[in-house]
Each structure stands twice: as C-alpha cells, then as structure tokens.
C-alpha cells in the first residue's frame, strides 16, 4: 500500500513531463511563430467568421468587418473620435482638410492627403474615391450603393488630390458617410476593382491595404486573422503619429464570456471586447495586469449609444404620452442599474448618451431645466427629476466596493451619471387614470377594459445586459399591477424590430458621434417622413415609429445648418426637451462596454485618464490605439 502511495506522485510527475513538452507550443491559444512581444491579440466580437476568405467589405454583409479589416487595413476620409481623440476629436485621414460645402449644401469638395500608398505600392488618389462611389452606384447590390445613388448626382476629380461631389439634394451632412464612427464608406482600390467583372461577387482575397497593416494570415475556419505592420507604414494615414507599437495584430474569436476571462488570465487575449459585469469584476480581482476604461468601478467604457425602453408608439396603448410617462415613473433606475450592470452603469435621463463630449454639451447645461421640469398628472403637477440619483447609486455601492467608488461629485457624474426620474407609483397611477386606465383588484386595465399587457422584447443571450435590464423593468411594472412580460426574441429581434412587431423593447434608437455634439447621426432618421405604415418594415433607427411635427421642424432646421454650426447644439437641446416632455422612449443609460485590456505585453491603452480614443476593439477608430501602444518591457 505504501509503495503504491509512493508511486502516485512519481506517475503524476511522469505524466506531467510527458504532457508539458508536447503542450508547451500548443497549449497557449496564441499564434505560432510570432514573437508574443510584437503581437497584440484582440477579440473580434463577430465571433467565428463563416465566410472567412471574404474581404470585400463593399459587398453586403458577405464576410467579416471587424476582423481587423476596418480597424487596420482600410481607411477613409475622416474620423470623429467617440472620446477626445489623439489630436482632437476630428481627424483628417485620407482627406487633407475638412469637407467644404457650398452655400446650399449641394456640393462638397474634398482635398486629399498626398503621399498615401496602397500596400501594393500604388498611390492613393482621387481616382480611388471616384471608383468607390461610381462602382457602387453602378452595382446596386453593394453595401453603399443605395446611399451613394440617392445622394450623388456626379463626382469629379479636377486633379488627383481633389474630389468634388455634386449632390442630388442639399445635404449638410453628406461627409458623414465618409466619416468613421465605428465604420464608414471605406475607400476601395480602383486598380484592383476595375479588373473585376462583378464587384459584388469578388472576394478581395488577399486584400490590398490602405491602412498601416496588411493581412499576414487567416484561419480558413474563421477563428483568427493576423495582420502585419507594413514596412512602408509611414506612407499611411497613421504615419504622422509615429510607428505603431504592435508589429502584428491578431483578431480572434475567443468564445463564450467565461473563456474570454480565462484567456486574459492566461495572457492570451490582450483586449476583450465585452464581458458580463461579473466577468469584469472577476478579472479585476484576479489579474493585476488587467485594465479597463475606468481604473476601478464601474470599469466599462460608455459607448455613445443610449439603451432605452423603446415603445412602439404606433401601438394604440402607447400613443398617449401620459402612459409612457407613467411607465417611466414606475421604473427604479437604481435597481435597473444594479440588475443590468451591477451598478456599473452611466445613467441618463435625457435622450443623449452621457458619453464623450455630450455631458458638457447637453447634460450639464440642461440640469437646471430638468430640475424645474413639471408634468401634469391630471390631479397635480410634479417635478419628476431627481438630480441625486447618480450620487445615490454611488452611495449604495460604496459599502461593498469601498475606495474605488468616487466621492467627488464630478467624478460620480462622469462614472454613474447625474439624475434620473424619481420612482413615483402614485404619480404613475394618476397618469394612467388620466389616460383612462383603471385599476381593479391590483391589476390595471386599459380604457377599453382589457388587461394592460406590456411585452418587453429583449435579445436574450445576444445582448445580455439589455436582457437583464428588461427583466428588472418587467418586474417593477408587474409589481405596480401591469401585466408585463419579458419576450425573448433572440435571433428574431432585427426582423421584428423592423416590422414594428413588438410592444416595447430594450435597445437603442439613439447613437451619436460621441466626440461631436451633432445629433443628426441618429436624429435625422427620426423624421416622420421615414416612419413606415404599421406592419411595414421600418427604415433603420426610428424604431419607436414616433411622428411629431415639432420634431420634424427641429430636424428640418438641423439639415440646413452646418455640421459644426453652434446652432445645431441649440436645436439638439430643443430635441432633448421635446423628448423629455413626450417620452417617446425611456432613456436608461449609456451602453457600457466592459473592454478589458491586459497590460502584460502592452501599455498605453486608452483609458478615462488618457481618453485618446475608444478602446472597444471593433471600432474603426480603434486604429489610433496602435500608435499609442508601447511594449510593456
């Protein structure tokens, strides 16, 4: 028996020895034959790419986009940073200057940068821009065909470094199509595409780069893509910022959230795109080298997107703003913040994301107005805004989270947001009664005597945090006597959302540049001219199908003022006030993305202290990260 006991460790040791030499090269989920010190490994949230060998981003949705293609290989005219930017928010990339519009916004002239070359040595010129526009107009099945066809009357290049767009109708924001906020219309290489008979069916493999990296290798099964720094990186738009740190980039599919955490703990995944808050906390606790946007709680980077309860305002029940307001007053945002983000949310009472430059432009100046804002419940007037909610959330978290919860009001506002609507079941009940609803035996009935049923559609696993917020809101409405139900539409949500086949859902119809105050990025699409008939497919963005003449007026005025015109801020504030009064959607909070960055091999990631860009690795803007990254050792 003793002999057996003595044998066990020996056998284990032997097994270990057998295992380790074989595994040393294979165990790690890192690329072979590439020095780890020169390699940055990032998560591509698109997951496994089923059509891995497809790099023609101009075909609709045929292959991957954020596998490094739009972050490292492609380029376009301008960038607006969702944060403060490496060199200011506005970046002239392929363009040498800002767009020049004529007085009535029917012509846009672009000066192009000189000395930019494709990776095959061909110089980038106005011909490439022309080809990008004309090719897509000629082939209607391509990604930007429709946008170009509906806007561009003609496009010319008076010289190789100037492009003049003649527009079909006035459009003060036509340049937005070529301005990266996540993505944009990427410029295609004319000298490649002009030889292709059908550009919509061309795979563009291997891709020619305009960005600083070229394709090194990729997994035919779509699990990973490796990009290599161009030797002539100076001849790209990143060149002016100095040599990018990583010589290699690997965009990988790291699998389910648990695995992403494990991969980063094993230092095999430098940048995690997003994980559940709990995973972020686990990482923060277990890994000294992990860094997130905020140094401590609430960690996540607030995306310039605004998750909200989006009603189907064409639905008879939600046509009345009193009903929408009643539902808003039944929400306890602190509980929603806890349930969805474990408190790590940045709340917003108004229809602008509390991120980037927006708090300074909208939230802070409008605070007074919000404090004095009144609604009429039919019985009395109340002031629903509670400016202390952000602080309350911080106070609530401090006992369990301790030091890392800021106490400076400014810091609190930045991390957790400012105020929100006070939970007020009494006022909500009055509003519902005002709208003709009745409460019998603890359950609300609609004016025509049916139970007041509200389904809240969520996307399940695909947007876990939204799902969690939705279940909490359902619970709160239920407690108030509303027959609320969660409706998991995993997979079917895009179709149902477009068709207006829902009562309400958790999602966003507000997204902004983040770094720029102009709201037309989303607001233009809220114009009633785009609202579809009930049952018909709705164009993107105005999911609430809300038509309002006052809003139309604001939008039309915005169209006629310039992008950087301070007047657009005033118009934006008008929109905010209108949206507060009408409550077409109930804004909740910023979409906080828990991007976790491992500092074992690289330092210099964008953070709240050094907010030079968005760390979220699928954004086209994240290229600016590469030039700021330095090897850790």
């Amino acid at each position, binding site marked *: 028996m003793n002999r057996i006991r003595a044998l066990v460790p020996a056998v284990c040791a032997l097994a270990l020895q057998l295992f380790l030499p074989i595994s040393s090269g294979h165990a790690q989920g890192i690329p072979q034959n590439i020095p780890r010190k020169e390699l940055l490994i990032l998560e591509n949230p698109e997951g496994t790419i089923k059509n891995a060998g497809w790099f023609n981003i101009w075909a609709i949705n045929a292959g991957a986009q954020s596998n490094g293609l739009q972050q490292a290989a492609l380029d376009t005219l301008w960038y607006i940073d969702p944060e403060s930017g490496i060199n200011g928010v506005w970046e002239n990339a392929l363009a040498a200057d800002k767009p020049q519009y004529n007085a009535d916004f029917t012509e846009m002239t672009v000066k192009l940068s000189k000395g930019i070359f494709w990776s095959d040595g061909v110089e980038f010129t106005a011909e490439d821009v022309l080809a990008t526009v004309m090719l897509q107009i000629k082939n209607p099945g391509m990604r930007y065909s429709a946008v170009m066809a509906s806007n561009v009357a003609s496009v010319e290049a008076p010289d190789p470094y100037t492009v003049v767009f003649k527009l079909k109708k006035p459009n003060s924001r036509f340049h937005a199509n070529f301005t990266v906020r996540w993505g944009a219309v990427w410029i295609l290489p004319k000298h490649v595409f002009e030889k292709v008979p059908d550009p919509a069916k061309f795979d563009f493999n291997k891709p020619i780069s305009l960005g600083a990296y070229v394709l090194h290798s990729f997994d035919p099964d779509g699990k990973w893509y490796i990009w290599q720094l161009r030797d002539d990186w100076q001849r790209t738009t990143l060149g002016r910022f100095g040599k990018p740190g990583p010589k290699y980039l690997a965009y990988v599919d790291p699998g*389910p*959230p*648990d695995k992403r*955490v*494990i991969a980063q703990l094993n230092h095999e995944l430098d940048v995690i795109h997003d*994980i*559940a808050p*709990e*995973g972020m*906390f*686990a990482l923060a606790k277990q890994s000294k080298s992990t860094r997130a946007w905020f140094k401590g709680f609430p960690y996540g980077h607030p995306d310039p997107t605004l998750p909200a309860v989006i009603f189907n305002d064409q639905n008879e029940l939600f046509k009345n703003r009193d009903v929408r307001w009643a539902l808003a007053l039944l929400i306890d945002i602190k*509980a929603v913040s*806890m*349930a969805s983000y*474990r408190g790590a949310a940045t709340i917003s009472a108004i229809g602008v994301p509390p991120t980037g430059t927006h708090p300074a432009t909208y939230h802070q100046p409008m605070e007074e107005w919000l404090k004095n804002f009144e609604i009429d419940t039919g019985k009395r007037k109340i002031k629903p805004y509670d400016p202390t909610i952000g602080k309350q959330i911080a106070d609530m978290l401090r006992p369990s989270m301790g030091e890392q919860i800021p106490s400076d009001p400014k810091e609190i506002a930045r991390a957790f947001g400012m105020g929100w609507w006070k939970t007020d079941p009494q006022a909500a009940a009055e509003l519902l009664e005002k709208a003709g609803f009745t409460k019998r035996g603890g359950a609300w009935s609609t004016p025509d005597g049916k139970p007041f049923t509200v*389904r809240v559609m969520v996307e*399940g*696993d*695909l947007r*876990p945090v939204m*799902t*969690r917020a939705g*279940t*909490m809101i359902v*619970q709160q409405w239920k407690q108030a006597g509303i027959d609320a*139900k*969660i*409706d*998991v*539409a*995993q*997979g*079917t949500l895009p179709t149902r959302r477009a068709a207006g086949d829902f009562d309400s859902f958790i999602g966003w119809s507000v997204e902004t540049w983040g770094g720029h105050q102009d709201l037309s990025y989303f607001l233009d699409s809220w114009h009633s001219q785009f609202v579809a008939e009930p049952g018909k497919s709705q164009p993107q963005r105005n999911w609430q199908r809300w038509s309002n003449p006052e809003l139309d007026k604001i939008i039309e005025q915005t169209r006629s003022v310039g992008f950087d015109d301070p007047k657009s801020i005033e118009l934006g504030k008008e929109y905010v006030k209108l949206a507060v009064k009408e409550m077409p959607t109930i804004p909740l909070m910023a979409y906080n993305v828990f991007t976790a960055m491992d500092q074992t091999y690289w330092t210099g990631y964008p953070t709240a202290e050094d907010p030079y860009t968005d760390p979220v690795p699928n954004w086209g803007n994240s290229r600016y990260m590469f030039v700021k990254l330095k090897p850790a050792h």
Partner: protein
Amino acid sequence: MLRILRDLLRYNPEFRIGIVLVGFVLILSVLASFSPYPPDQVYVVPPDVPPSPTYWFGTTSRGQDVFWQLTFAIRNTLLFGGTVALISRVLALVIGLVSGYKGGWIDRVLMSINDTFIVMPLLPILVLFYFVMRDSMSWLILALIMACLGWAYDARLIRSVAMSLKTREFTQSSVFSGMSTREILVQEHLPYVMPIVFSTTMNNMVWSIGLEVTLSVLGFTDINTPTIGGMIYWANQHTAMVAGIWWWIAFPTAIVVMTFIGLFLLAVSMNEYIDPRSRLSRMGGAS
C-alpha cells in the same frame, strides 16, 4: 402494492438509495409551493452570498436564493422531462409493438414515418419552432414538441424486440387460442418490453433535459419559467463559473445528477422485481 414497496425497501439497498435520492428531489420540488419568494423576482436577497446557514445553497448574482430557485427549477424540469418521456413512451410502444407484430405494409408505412422522424435533425427544428412560437413557447409546448420528436428511435428498438417475440412459441399459441392482436400485444408482449421501456425512459429524460439545457445555453429558453436549464442560462449570463459563484451551477448540477442516479437505481430494482427470472426465485421454484 404496498407490500411490494415494503419488500423493496427492506431488502434492496439499491432501491433504498434510489428512493432516498428521488425522495429528496421530490421533496425539494414540492417545497416550491412554500417558497417565500416568487420564482421570477430578482434582487429579493443580497446577491452572491456563498452557502451559509441563512442561504443554504447561497444566493445568485441576481439576488435570488439558490435553494428556493432550485425548488422551482427541479419541479419544472421534472415535469418537463416526465411529460416528454410519458408521451414519447406511449407513442414508441404503440408504434413499435404494432409495427413489429403486424409486419407487412403496416410495418413499412409505420417505419417510413418512424425513419423520417429519426432522420430529421432536431436542433434547427426546435430553434425554428421557438422562433415561430415566440413568447408563447412554454415548457409544456416544448415538451410536446420534443415528445413528438423523441419517440422514433425507441420505437425501432421496441419493434425489433416485438419482431423476435413474434417468432416465439407463446405468441403462436396465443394466436391459436384466439387472442386478438390487442390482447396479444398488451398481455403477452408488453411485459417483455417493459424493461426496455423503463431504461429508455431514463435515457429519454436525460436526453430531453439535456436538450433543454442545450437550448438554454444557446439562449432559446423561456426565461420566465425557472428550470435547470434556465438557472444555467442565468448563471452563464453572469459568468458565474469564472466569477466564483460556483454554487449557482454546482447545486443545480448536483440535483440533476442525484435525480438521475435515483431514477436509475429505482428502475434497476424495479426491473429486478418484475423480471420473470427473479420472480421465479422469489416464488421458490427449485429446478
């Protein structure tokens, strides 16, 4: 009946362990009716508390008591698995016995239907059903769908046994003694296939509950009704495994394993009890 139970209890240790395990699980599921918390409410207790005297099985990251959550989950899961098993067993038995005994064109028609069901891939069908049914996809409907999809293989198995029974002498003598098909199948063949039915019931339940968990992991689940799969779904959404909230996963898993070991032991001891050979030795036949 009671005597059988008493005998089994007193003399069969497997049955004893089985009854203890299954009994525990059943008591747990009955306790659901006494839960102090409604199953679908979150943040009713402090989140992430490890098992303690106050919260026996700890609490979830959603602020739910794992113990009470589990009572609902195991109840619903057992109901689910049981429903699937029951309906699919009846289908498999009827079709298997009739097909195997009758043979000829009846057999060919039934087996064509049967084979069609065998070859239909499950997952896309279930997911598409889920898409079509939307939020009216309750566990009961899922159970019905899965029962309709889960009988075919076992029907084939039962058919093959029925085919071999058909060639045995006692069947011939039953035919000559003027028994009807129904009588032969029910009185003569059914007892022989019962052990298969018992063991396939187990497998069927493991299969259906496993598939329910799979669908949950993929996110196709009715998250309003707590089930074992539902618990794993939520635990997964909160990365409980790496966040160190092991009790959120360990207890549901342990209960599932206990349920099946218990059911298995019961099935084994029951089989032994009804097995003709063992019955003989109980009655004391000498040669």
